[in-house]
């Protein structure tokens, strides 16, 4: 089973470099799915998100979710990068890359990982509005919780 690459970091990441690293020198991969989650400006309302996280738990929990994906699908590689700290509209927050010999496994595993990260990775988003005020904590969505039932 491949060893997942997991990083929790403040700075930006290079989605292309991460996905290239997963495939470099290999000729057994048939499908790579890359998911990038970005900060939206919510119609111009949002100046930035401040992502709080639980440092000691974040990598461990993402690792558990990745291991579960590796158990369920025949993956040839998994990379997950999650940022914390201030993130501005247009910037990436999270990256999930899955590689497999066939497309169905790569797609399903990427969706599974995102669904689980949404509800299990210890990160919390606070909105900072363009008028300089605190927009409050983003509330967890019921639909994100419900998305887990399909797995």
């Amino acid at each position, binding site marked *: 089973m491949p060893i997942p690459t997991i990083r929790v970091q403040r700075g930006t990441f290079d989605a292309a470099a991460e996905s290239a690293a997963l495939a470099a020198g290999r000729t057994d991969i048939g499908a790579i799915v890359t998911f990038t*989650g970005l900060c939206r400006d919510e119609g111009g309302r949002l100046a930035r998100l401040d992502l709080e996280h639980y440092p000691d738990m974040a990598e461990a*929990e993402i690792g558990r979710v990745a291991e579960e994906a590796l158990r369920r699908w025949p993956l040839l590689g998994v990379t997950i990068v999650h940022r914390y700290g201030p993130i501005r509209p247009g910037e990436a927050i999270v990256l999930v890359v899955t590689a497999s010999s066939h497309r169905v496994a790569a797609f399903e595993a990427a969706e599974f990982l995102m669904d689980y990260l949404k509800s299990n990775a210890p*990160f*919390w988003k606070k909105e900072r509005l363009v008028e300089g005020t605190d927009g409050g904590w983003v509330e*967890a969505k019921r639909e994100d919780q419900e998305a887990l039932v399909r797995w």
Partner: protein
Amino acid sequence: MKAVYFAWVRERIGKAEEELDPPADVATISDMIAWLKTRGQEYVYAFENSRSIRAAIDHAHVKHDAPISGAREIAFFPPMTGG
């Protein structure tokens, strides 16, 4: 043991972490929340809707009926909004 708080739980309690020594009859996460609420209005406020509070023991998610015996670090936080 160490207690750590995140997001609005942290804001309401007014601190990010503290050392705690709960009495012997505090056996589960639920007991721990009930005991914390006896410690002041800030805890009552943080845990007012205790069903929505998530907990972790030593960096792993647990349910409210999980025993806390042997725990080194207990975390309390709202539902996560990462990803």
